[in-house]
């Protein structure tokens, strides 16, 4: 039962993030690229204000999987890096925190592009 509730929270919160994105697409004509940028920057701001971590504690993957979670991870990374290395952390924190995700997307994307047949443009 406990576990079911955990999945339900992830579903509802994650779904809500996507529904908001869809509202933005339908009513503001924001392009997908702008939505991605907006979500990541919003995540950095929410993470910086300290309101995102409680949401992660509540919804788990429902808060970390949307791109706002990626932004919040950047904020957390830079805060930890500044605590550890001072001013240098301002420059190292963000990429350090996001390195696994960025590298994975880059390398997997590269491999997929190399082994795929060029797409049939229908």
């Amino acid at each position, binding site marked *: 039962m406990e576990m079911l509730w955990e999945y339900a929270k992830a579903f509802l919160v994650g779904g809500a993030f*996507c529904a908001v994105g869809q509202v933005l697409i339908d009513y503001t004509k924001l392009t*997908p690229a702008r939505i991605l940028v907006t979500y990541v920057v919003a995540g950095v701001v929410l993470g910086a204000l300290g309101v995102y971590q409680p949401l992660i504690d509540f919804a788990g993957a429902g808060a970390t999987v949307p791109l706002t979670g990626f932004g919040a991870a950047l904020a957390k990374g830079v805060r930890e890096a500044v605590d550890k290395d001072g001013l240098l952390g301002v420059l190292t924190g963000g990429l350090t925190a996001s390195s696994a995700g960025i590298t994975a997307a880059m390398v997997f994307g590269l491999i997929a592009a190399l082994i795929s047949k060029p797409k049939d443009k229908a």
Partner: protein
Amino acid sequence: MKKLTKNEYSTLADKASPPTKSYRTIPTAFLVGGLICTLGQGLLNLYQYLGLPEKTASAAVSVSLIFLSVLATGLNVYDNLAKYAGAGTLVPITGFANAVASPALEFKSEGLILGIGAKLFTISGPVIVYGIAASCVYGLLYYLFG
């Protein structure tokens, strides 16, 4: 031929584009996006069950979802799903991975360097630039006033 003003053009464009069926798009985005996050939660529980500490497990979830998304993009499944799911497939981290892989696949014919290599960053580049820049602003404020 008559030149159109900006306003005339946008009225024409509005007329030509089909009306958005929000009663369908928003629930679909909610459902698909929610399911992707639920899958992420399942993976998170699995990795923690296998003994990974929370931080590692969380990173492993992101990497797994990215892998699945790139795989689905390569098989031409993700972009087809995205036609129906809209923001449901865009907002999760899988949408970011798709935005990396999809243009790279599409522009393969333009070569290894300016085709695949450059197009990997068509959409993810801005996301990384503005995300990292925002983190620098926050880091600087935190360093000065935190």
